[in-house]
């Protein structure tokens, strides 16, 4: 971190002290398989935070799943859902439970890697049975938000805290035309951000048509074929000029500085109403098999949910055996800034475990130590 980066972080921190930042209960439950126990475990989990009904009844619900990286890339040949993708069984169960809780419509969304084609086809490429998912409940939709799709124009969502890197994002309108926004994440490490839980999952709502390496210079490229490394991770270029550029072109170009902040900006643009983390089976060492180093498929056997994404991810981080308030230089934030602290400073939620009510299983009961990254 250089002096400018340090000042930027230090300047942001005093806005909200941990004790002042919002809090909300976080539920943890044991769940060892994606089999028969999944429905009752997820139902139990949501009951512990007040039930799904109060969140989704008569509402249009948009659920951001995590299908990061090309489905071609697998960890030792394992099914994507047991390592780094949201598991299809949790998606089917989520749809069923939301329908049972009175949701009017459930729309599963993701900006699928390297394509703006139908999300259903991306799921087929992932080896999923899309017909079975569609039959899990009535009124289910799948939308690939990597471009505009069938919508007429992008939604510009301003960042409530002003934004660390960007002042606003231009997104597929699915994220605006919804009553409820849910993040369905995996419990994972991340090469750039240390951890990827419900907040980091939301980075994927940024369309590659605008924020991708092959985005148009001015107008969006509605047939994107790559990721967002140049615009977001490295800041080598600006998004398509139809969207707002970065606030400060002289800020650090380090991905370890930029990505935690961009994640906070995304959350600030469209706050989450429900955060769900699948830790039944997952991987350690990184967010996907393309990451170098020691990667392992593991089975922590747990689920986490809450209505505040910062408190939920704080508990998730603690469950992984890390200090959620660790500074840069301490695992899992060995090289990067701590997204949780940045989010807390932005007033999104507290990272102080003393101020977070944990229901169901305790952190110590389900503690599953992830490696130092």
């Amino acid at each position, binding site marked *: 971190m250089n002096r400018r980066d340090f000042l930027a972080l230090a300047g942001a921190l005093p806005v909200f002290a941990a004790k002042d930042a919002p809090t909300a209960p976080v539920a943890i439950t044991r769940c060892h398989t994606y089999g028969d126990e999944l429905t009752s475990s997820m139902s139990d989990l949501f009951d512990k935070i007040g039930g799904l009904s109060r969140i989704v009844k008569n509402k249009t619900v948009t659920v951001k799943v995590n299908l*990061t990286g*090309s*489905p*071609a*890339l697998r960890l030792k*040949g394992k099914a994507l859902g047991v390592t780094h993708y949201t598991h299809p069984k949790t998606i089917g169960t989520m749809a069923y439970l939301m329908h049972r809780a009175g949701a009017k419509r459930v729309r599963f969304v993701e900006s699928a890697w390297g394509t703006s084609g139908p999300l259903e*086809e991306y799921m087929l490429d992932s080896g999923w049975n899309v017909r079975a998912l569609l039959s899990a409940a009535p009124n289910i939709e799948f939308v690939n938000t990597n471009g505009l799709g069938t919508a007429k124009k992008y939604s510009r969502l301003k960042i409530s805290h002003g934004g660390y890197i960007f002042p606003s994002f231009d997104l597929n309108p699915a994220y605006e035309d919804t009553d409820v926004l849910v993040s369905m994440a995996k419990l994972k490490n991340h090469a750039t951000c240390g951890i990827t839980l419900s907040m980091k999952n939301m980075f994927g709502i940024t369309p590659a048509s605008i924020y991708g390496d092959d985005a148009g210079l001015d107008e969006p490229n509605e*047939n994107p074929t790559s990721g967002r490394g140049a615009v977001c991770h490295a800041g080598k270029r600006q998004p398509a000029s139809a969207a707002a550029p970065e606030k400060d072109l002289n800020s650090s170009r380090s991905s370890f500085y930029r990505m935690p902040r961009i994640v906070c900006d995304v959350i600030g643009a469209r706050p989450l109403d429900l955060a769900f983390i699948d830790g039944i089976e997952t991987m350690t060492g990184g967010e996907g098999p*393309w*990451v170098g180093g020691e990667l392992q498929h593991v089975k922590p056997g747990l689920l986490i949910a809450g209505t505040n994404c910062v408190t939920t991810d704080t508990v998730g981080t603690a469950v992984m055996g890390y200090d959620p308030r660790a500074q840069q230089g301490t695992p899992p934030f060995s090289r990067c800034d701590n997204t949780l602290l940045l989010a807390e400073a932005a007033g999104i939620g507290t990272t102080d475990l003393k101020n977070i009510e944990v229901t169901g299983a305790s952190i110590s009961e389900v503690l599953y130590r992830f490696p130092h990254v």
Partner: protein
Amino acid sequence: MIPVALLFLALAPTDWVPMRWISPDPHSLELLEDSSINCLAVDPAILTKEFREAAKTRKIDLVVIGDADQKAKAEQAGLPFLEETDRGKMKLGSSDPVLVSRQAVWPGINIAEGEAEAMPSGAPWIDTNAGFFRFTRALTKARIWVSSAPPPNRIIPVSRYIHAIADAAFVGGNWVLTLDRDFSQKLLSQDEKALADWKQINAVIRFYAAHRQWNDYRPAGEMAVIQGVKNGGLLSGGVLDMVSSRHTPIRAIPAEHLDTQAMQGIRMAVNTSPASLSTEQKAVLKQFTASGGSLFSAPDDWIMPEPRPDQVTLDKTDITSLDKIWKEVTSMTNRQNLGARLFNVSSMLSNFTVSPDGKLYILHLVNFSDYPIEDITVHLHGKVKSGKLITPEGLNQSVELFEVDEGSGAEISKIISVGAVIFERQ
């Protein structure tokens, strides 16, 4: 006139399943007890009478494969001679029943292009000879073999042999099996692991040999790539391989053979050889587009450099040249169903063919990953009555069919190494 050596063969050369044999010992042939390998390439200098008789008893034909200077030795030994040449020197216009190229890529996932990255990347590239086979099979009725020995002092995993054999067989070619020295020695000494690997290899060879009628099936793809011998058609990794790596069912049309009949059933075409077409051929393409076909023609000044004699695959200059047309080709084919669309097949190659009577489709699948691939989906352009998955492991299983916008959908449960789905057309 038929060469004398061909008069005493147990089999028609087109039915040969070849291998370079590993020992002059007649008893070594016992390793072929349950094998479909029926043609052994041997060194006539160490060939014994006993070995010849043992081979004859087992209805195995012996041949000599080598450079032109070995022809005399083969004739002296009374054995058929198959000249192995560079790809560019193959006698594609001859009446030879078998043509052998010594040049091949070792099929498999290209590790260099799939190595770990800090950010998500796309599907890995699969090195393959399939485009070469597709192109040469469209040029000649001869059986096409490739004969590429393992690099010296290198131990080849069994999966690589299986990939090499299947990579040729699934598009109607033959890989002349040549085992590495270590494997050969272990096999001859009855090493348990080597025997188990040998069994696996033979299961795949037997699978294709048992269905040799598939070699007469023609490409069922509705997309054509028009390409010339001197314009990259004989190279691996070119337009044919790039399009088919995206599982677009494809038909190779040599520029030399382009006519109205060759374009029948085609809905989309890429012409990489515009400058080499005759006036009549240009009229065929004009008619094609006038009747609704989509055609992408490379610019007149676009040309792939003529391959060097030692060249098997595209080099950097060729790839740069190809890039100029590739974006157009991908945007044209993107999400189009040109016979079949496949999902969850990124580490596989496929070939979609139709029987001579038009009643059956075969979808060939070869898995190049080290793990079984489960839950593959196929959307066929048109309806089918039934589908059956068969594999070398002995699976013979109906596949679940369902309706999709384009016709019929099918779900394939698992492919371990290779498989074929036989669809009965409605």
